[in-house]
């Protein structure tokens, strides 16, 4: 296999050439929060606004036809990228949070009864926790939470014990954004399906780092965000199996999602358009399609291999640092490592790193209940993207050593 040419990749990302006000080069190690954008994405967006912009799915003039084609082409690229059976199964959203809320409102709420339950895990980001929590509270249903093992992996026996004939939905993250745990999605979907339970997968931390195959997972719904996979902000995808998207009432109402409208009733369009009323985020879709083409050009396996090596190196170095401890020791780890340094609060760590141009995340990572379970108020978290290099980890470690000496 040809390896990723990371020096060439770095030149494609204008943000990596920036510096802090103190003149330190940016070492961007917060890719689980969001990723930087390659020039190809920026050029695709500029190309839209300067070459063929108009509304989508409405006009029959040039450039409306061209804009509509670009929007549907983006959908097809997305479908291919996640191995959906059909582009009809790809609904554009504002992001993973938006997708989860839509499934909660339109798919779950109409059928959720008092005494039913929804199963999530202790790893969930607030985005894949609060919508289900609020739905359960509104109806009088129970939110069941799969426990973690001490490694950070999900307790599969506990998971199996939570599934029953009153489980209305399972909603799980593919990758823990805090601990970096990669979950056995396919096995967990299969277990739910044996009870006839539908499963939503939050793949926000997965799609940009590893090859994703929604059909191999056999997931019923999959959500993710464009901005975490080198695409623009404000665009995301809700994948749903065609029969589920068809049986689900429109996730919002408005123009462009209809076949026939009268004052008293409306015949809605087929999927996916029935779930996409209003003028869509064409800029986001075009930018995201460009990001996918860029990723596929480099190869998802190559990207995965590169970030995996970086992660292994980072784990080794952090484990070797006096006073530093990594949270979780999962079987499979995504390019995310959470740690603490004795005597130093995560924000003090992040402050020292920021001074050297190193961007990391400190805090609860939108997983407050998980922090409570782990018994820490917060962690420092590094997360790698395809453009990161070993030297950035070495720089990180130089500062961590100094942080430990300063605060110990």
């Amino acid at each position, binding site marked *: 296999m040809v390896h990723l040419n990371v020096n060439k990749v770095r030149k494609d990302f204008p943000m990596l050439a920036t510096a802090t006000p103190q003149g330190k080069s940016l070492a961007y190690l917060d890719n689980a929060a969001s990723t930087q954008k390659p020039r190809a994405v920026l050029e695709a967006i500029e190309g839209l606004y300067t070459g063929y912009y108009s509304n989508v799915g409405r006009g029959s003039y040039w450039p409306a036809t061209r804009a509509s084609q670009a929007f549907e082409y983006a959908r097809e690229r997305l479908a291919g990228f996640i191995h959906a059976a059909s582009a009809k199964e790809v609904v554009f959203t504002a992001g993973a949070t938006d997708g989860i809320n839509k499934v909660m409102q339109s798919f779950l709420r109409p059928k959720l009864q008092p005494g039913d339950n929804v199963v999530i895990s202790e790893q969930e980001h607030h985005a894949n926790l609060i919508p289900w929590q609020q739905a359960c509270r509104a109806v009088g249903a129970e939110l069941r939470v799969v426990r973690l093992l001490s490694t950070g992996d999900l307790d599969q026996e506990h998971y199996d014990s939570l599934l029953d004939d009153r489980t209305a939905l399972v909603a799980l993250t593919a990758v823990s954004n805090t601990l970096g745990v990669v979950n056995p999605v396919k096995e967990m979907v299969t277990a739910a399906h044996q009870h006839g339970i539908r499963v939503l997968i939050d793949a926000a931390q997965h799609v940009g780092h590893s090859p994703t195959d929604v059909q191999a997972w056999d997931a019923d719904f999959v959500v993710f965000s464009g901005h975490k996979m080198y695409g623009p902000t404000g665009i995301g995808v809700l994948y749903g199996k065609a029969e589920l998207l068809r049986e689900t009432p429109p996730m919002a109402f408005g123009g462009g999602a209809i076949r026939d409208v009268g004052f008293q009733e409306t015949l809605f369009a087929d999927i996916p358009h029935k779930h996409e009323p209003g003028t869509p985020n064409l800029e986001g879709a075009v930018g995201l399609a460009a990001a996918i083409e860029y990723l596929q050009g480099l190869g998802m396996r190559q990207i995965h291999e590169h970030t995996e090596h970086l992660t292994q190196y980072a784990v080794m170095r952090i484990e070797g640092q006096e006073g530093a401890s990594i949270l979780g020791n999962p079987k499979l780890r995504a390019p995310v490592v959470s740690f603490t340094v004795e005597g130093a*609060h995560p*924000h*003090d760590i992040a402050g020292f790193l920021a001074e050297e141009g190193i961007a990391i995340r400190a*805090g609860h990572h939108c997983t407050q209940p998980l922090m409570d379970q782990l018994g820490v108020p917060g962690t420092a978290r590094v997360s790698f993207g395809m453009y990161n290099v070993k030297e950035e980890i070495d720089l990180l470690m130089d500062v961590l050593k100094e942080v430990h000496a300063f605060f110990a």
Partner: protein
Amino acid sequence: MNERIKGLYKTQILAHSKNPFQEGELEGATHVLQAYNSMCGDKYTLYLKIENDRVEDAYFKGYGCAISKASSSILTKKSIGKSMEELDALVRLFLKIVSAKEEVSPEDLTDEEELLAFSAAREFPEREICATMSWKVVQEELLKE
């Protein structure tokens, strides 16, 4: 390396963050305030016992970075014995010391070392909230009238 950031953590700040004064709950508190920074999750509960318009006792409990912990420690320590009017003046003074928008130099505002220790926050506007979160909740919820 890192001399600028180390300047933010003056001796007094490190000392207060490692061994804070007034840390803990206060039984018989007349006012319990919550200071919360939603961006990072830092959280403190402030306990004040105010009688006859004077702060008789003050404690704080919670977690956060060295800057926010030291500033909560100094706030509670310095509040004790102050009348509400004096407390109001102290809070206003502290907020000026750390504000990057304040034109008067910190040294011209006060000569109290424990307060001046936070003046480096002026150079780190992203950390101003760490220095002020507990002070601001006192201002907003206790001194607003």
